[in-house]
C-alpha cells in the first residue's frame, strides 16, 4: 500500500497504514526481563557475541534488548517495567530515507523495514537516524575471530558454526543489521500455506522471541486481521506506541502496567 502521508485529508489512510501488516505486542506488565527473547533471537538469527571489550563499547549485536530505568531514591526507588526494545518496523521509518545505497528499503509485500546486507556499505546513517537505537553494526568479522576456533590438523575449525541457521545470512564486517521480525519464518509459513492452497493462519508461526517468552509477554501476528490475537491485544486501552509523536508509525505496541 502506498500512502502519501503529506496529502491533506489522508488521515484515514494514515490510520490504516499505521496498522501495517505484521505487528507485535509486548505486555510490560508480565515481562520479567529474563532475557530469554534476547537469547532466542541470537540463536535464531545467527547473531554473534562480541566479547567483553566490544560489549563495553556498546557494540553488542542485540536485535532485541531489555531496558529498565530507575525512578526515585532508596527506599522509594522503583525500577520501571522491563521494556524489550527492538526494531519497531516503522511504517514511516527514519532509517529508510537516509541510506545512500537503498540498503534499508521498505518491503511493499510485507510492509516491513528490510535490511539488504549485500547492498549495505556501512555508512551507519540509518543507526544514527533511528530514534529507537535498535540497529547494530558489525565492527569486526566476529564469526571468524581465530580465538573462537580450534586448530585441528593445521586447519582452523569453528565448532560454534554448526549451530548457524541456514535460513539466515551470516553478516560480515562493515554491515548494519537489525531485527527482521524473523522474515525467514514469515516466508516459510507463507510458502507452506501457499503449497497447501490456503492463507497463513493466526498463530501458525511466530517470531523466535515470542516463541521463547516464558511469560507469554510477546505476541506476534497479522495486524490487518482484526480478529487476530495481536490485533485484539494492540487495541486494548493499555496499548501505547513509543515515540509516536515522531510519526514513525511503529508496528510494536507496548501494553502498560495496571
Amino acid at each position, binding site marked *: 500500500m502506498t500512502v502519501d502521508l503529506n496529502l491533506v485529508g489522508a488521515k484515514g489512510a494514515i490510520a490504516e497504514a499505521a496498522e501495517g501488516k505484521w505487528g507485535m505486542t509486548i*505486555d510490560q*506488565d*508480565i515481562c*520479567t*526481563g*529474563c*532475557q*530469554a527473547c*534476547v*537469547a*532466542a533471537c*541470537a*540463536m*535464531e538469527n545467527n547473531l554473534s*557475541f*562480541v*566479547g*567483553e*571489550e566490544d*560489549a*563495553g*563499547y*556498546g557494540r*553488542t549485536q*542485540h536485535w532485541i*534488548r*531489555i*531496558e*529498565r530505568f*530507575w525512578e526515585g*531514591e*532508596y*527506599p522509594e*526507588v*522503583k*525500577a520501571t517495567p*522491563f521494556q524489550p526494545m527492538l526494531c519497531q518496523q516503522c511504517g514511516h521509518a527514519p532509517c529508510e530515507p537516509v541510506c545512500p545505497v537503498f540498503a534499508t528499503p521498505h518491503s511493499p509485500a510485507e510492509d516491513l523495514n528490510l535490511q539488504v546486507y549485500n547492498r549495505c556499505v556501512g555508512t551507519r546513517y540509518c543507526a544514527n537516524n533511528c530514534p529507537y537505537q535498535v540497529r547494530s553494526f558489525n565492527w569486526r568479522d566476529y564469526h571468524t575471530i581465530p*580465538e*573462537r*576456533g*580450534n586448530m585441528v590438523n593445521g586447519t582452523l575449525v*569453528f*565448532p*560454534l*558454526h*554448526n*549451530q*548457524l*541457521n*541456514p535460513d539466515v545470512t551470516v553478516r560480515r564486517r562493515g554491515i548494519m543489521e537489525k531485527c527482521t521480525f524473523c522474515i525467514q519464518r514469515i516466508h516459510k509459513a507463507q510458502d507452506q500455506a501457499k503449497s497447501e492452497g490456503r492463507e497463513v493462519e493466526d498463530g501458525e508461526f511466530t517470531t*523466535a522471541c515470542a*516463541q*521463547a*517468552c*516464558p*511469560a*507469554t*509477554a510477546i505476541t506476534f501476528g497479522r495486524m490487518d486481521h482484526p480478529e487476530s490475537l495481536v490485533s485484539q491485544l494492540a487495541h486494548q486501552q493499555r496499548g501505547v506506541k513509543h515515540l509516536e509523536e515522531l510519526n514513525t508509525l511503529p508496528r510494536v505496541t507496548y501494553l502498560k502496567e*495496571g
Partner: protein
Amino acid sequence: MSQKISRRDFLKLATAGAATTAVLTGCGPASRYITREPYTKMPEYTYNGLSTYYATTCRECAAGCGLIVRTMQGRAIKVEGNAANPINLGKTCARGQATLQGLYNPDRVEFPVKQGRSSALVNTPMNWEDAFQVVADALNNTNISEIAFLMGTASDHLFDMVSDLTNAVGAPAPVRFGALSMFESRATLSKAAENLLGSAGLPFFDLANADVVVSFSSNFLETWLSPVAYTRGFSRMRRGNPKKRGYFIQFESQMSQTAAKADEWIPVLPGTEGLVALALGRLVAEAKGGSVPRAFSSVDVEEASAKSGVSLEQLEHVAGLIAEAQSPLTIPGGQALGQSNGLSTAEAVLALNALTDNLGKPGGVFISPLSPNEDAYHRPASAKEMSDFIARMKSGGIKALFIHGVNPVFELPKSLGFAEALANVPLVISFATFPDETALTSDYIFPDHHGLESWGYQRSATGAMQSVLSGSQPVVSPMYDTRATTDVLIEAARLAGGKLAEAMPFTDEVDFIQNKLASLVGHVDGSFIAPEINTFSSYFQQHGGWWTTAVASNAPSAADALSKGIEAEEAEFAGEGEFFFIPFVSPTLAEAGANKPWLQELPDPMTTVMWNSWVAMNPETAHHHGLDNDDVVKLVSEAGELEVAVYLYPAIHPDVLAMPFGQGHTAYGRFATAQLPQEEFLGLVPYGGPVGDAFKRGANPADVLGAHFNEAGDLAFAGMKVKIEKTGRKQYLSRLESRIGVYGEGFPEEP
C-alpha cells in the same frame, strides 16, 4: 532388535505395525544415532531446506523442561520448548536457548584422558577400552564402602543406574549436589513442609491462581526451583484473569529481578524475614477477627517492625491485603531460608499459608507429586551433608571417587575445603563434558556426551500439577569421542564381573532406560498409552516424555500447621564487618552457564553488566565510603576474601552488599575464563590473576562463604558479614546501560 533392518524393510514393518498399533523402532545400539553429513551429501530421507525435529529434555538445570530441537542434516540449529510438556508448555529460559552453545562449545573434553590432576586439560587421548578397565579396576579393587559417587542434579536415569549399582554391591548411595539447590535452600523447605504439613516433599506454590502474592526473598522468576513454570504462573497471576490483576509484594534486602516485577518491593534486613512473616500472621489473624493461633502467638509486632526495618504501617497494609484476598499466597525464598534461623522462617511462611487456608486449594500450596517411576523424593544433598562427605574424603574414607554432572570445586564454598580434601582421595574419576575446575583436578576424565547427544530421562521435582517424566534422546550424533556414562558403567561392571556384572545385565544405555520405563507400560491415565515397551519407548521419544493427565499433586495436611508455636530466633551472622553479604545466583548464568558466550553477553536484567562480576552497593553507602562505580574493592569475610568491582545499585538496603554467583572460573573453557590478564584488557588495571593457562573472569562469592548451617543443614549463605577494603584500582564493567566510563569520559551523575 539388534539385527540390521534396511530402510525398505523398516517401512514395510512400520506399515504392518501401524495396523497392530505397535510401532517398530528398528534401532539396534549401532543405529541409535543420526549421522552428521555435510550439506552437500544428504541422507535420502531429508529434503533440502526441510528440518527434522526431535523432542528431548533440557539439562541446563534440573527442572526438566521439554525441548524440541530443530536439526538440519544432523546439526542442531535451534532449541524451542516442547509445547506438550506440562512443566514449560513450549517455553524456554535464556539458558535453555543457549544450550546449543554448550553442545558446539569449542572447549569440550573430546576424548578420554589420563588427566593426572594437571592444571590444563591433557591432550593425549586414551583408549576407551582402557578407560573401561580403569573404571572396572576402581570398582573391583576398592573396598566397597570406600567407593563414592558424587553426582549433579540433572540426568536422573544415570542417578538411578548408580543407585542400582551401589545397592547391589552394598556401596554407599550416590550423593547429589548442585549450587542451585544450595542457593534454593531446598533442604530447609522440605524440612519445614515435613514439620508443618506432614510431608517431606517439595512444596509447589500455585502462583497462577493466587490474587495476592507475598514473597520473602524468593527469586522464582530467576532460577528458583523451576523458573519457566513459575514465570508462567506469574504471568497468569497478573493477566490470566481479565477481571482481576494479581497483586505481588516482595520482601527482600535488594531489589532482585523478581522484586523488580513486584507491585511493592519492601526492603527488609536480612535474617528478619521470619519475624515479618510471624508479625503478618498475627495481624492477619487479628484482622480476620479470630483468635491468634499458637504459631503466631509469640511475636510482638512492634518489635518485629523495629528489627526488620519494615514500618508498622507497611506491615498492617500488607496484612490487610492478605486478609482481604480471596486466595493469598506466601512464598519463602532461598535467601530467607539460607540463614541460621532459616527453618523457623520457612515454618512461619508456610504457617501463614495455613492461616489463610490455601493448603491444597487453587492459588495455594501443594506438595509436588513424585515423578512416574519414582519411589520417594530424593532431595539433593544439603551443604551440611556435603560437609560430612568432605570430612569422609579428608579422613581417607573414600578411596575411589566418581564425579558426574557437578563442579564442586567451583560450586561449594571454599571454606568447606573440597579442593584440599580431593588430595586425600587416591583415585578421582570425572565424567565431565567440559574441562571444569573439578575435572582438571581428577586423575581421569571419561567424558560423557552433551545432554543433546544423550539418552535419558529427567524427573520434574516441581513445576506442574501433573507427575512428569521428561525424556531425552540424542538430537545429533556425538561430536567427539565421548561415551555415555551409563554405557561406561555397564561396560565396566561387565569387566568387573561378580555382583557388579549381575546388577548391570544391560546391553546398553537404552536397554537400561527401557527397563526403567517398563513399569509405565499399560498405564491408562498417562499422556499416551502403549501396549508394550518398544511402542512405549518410541512414543516416549516422540513426545519427549510421559506424564499423567490428571492432577497428581497432593494437598498438604493442615492439621498441625498452626498448632506448633514458632519462635523467631534472632539470626546469627558470621564474621565481622559492617555489611550483610547476600550472594544470589546470576539469573542469566546460573551455576553452569559461564562457558556459553551468549549467556555471558546477556546483560544482567537489573545491572545490565555483561561478561563479569560486580558487587551491588547502595549509592549513599558508596558515597560515604568514597567509592564510585567500577572501583575495585576487596571483600573480606571470616572465610576468605575476593576482589570485585562496585556497581552503584539504587535499590539495595544501605547495609547490604549483593553479589551474583556464576562467574569467577579459573577453568571451564575460554569463555568462562579470560584469555588476557585484565591489565592488558582495555589497557586497564589487573583484576583477578593468572591461574594455569587461563585468567580468572570475575569473582566467585563462594570464596568468601563460611561453613555455617541452619537447622535443616542448608548453608547459611545469607548469614555472613563482610568488610570492604579499597584497592584504589578500577575495573570498568561492560554494561548495556551506559558506555560512559569505558571511554574515560568521566562518570554520570548518580542515578
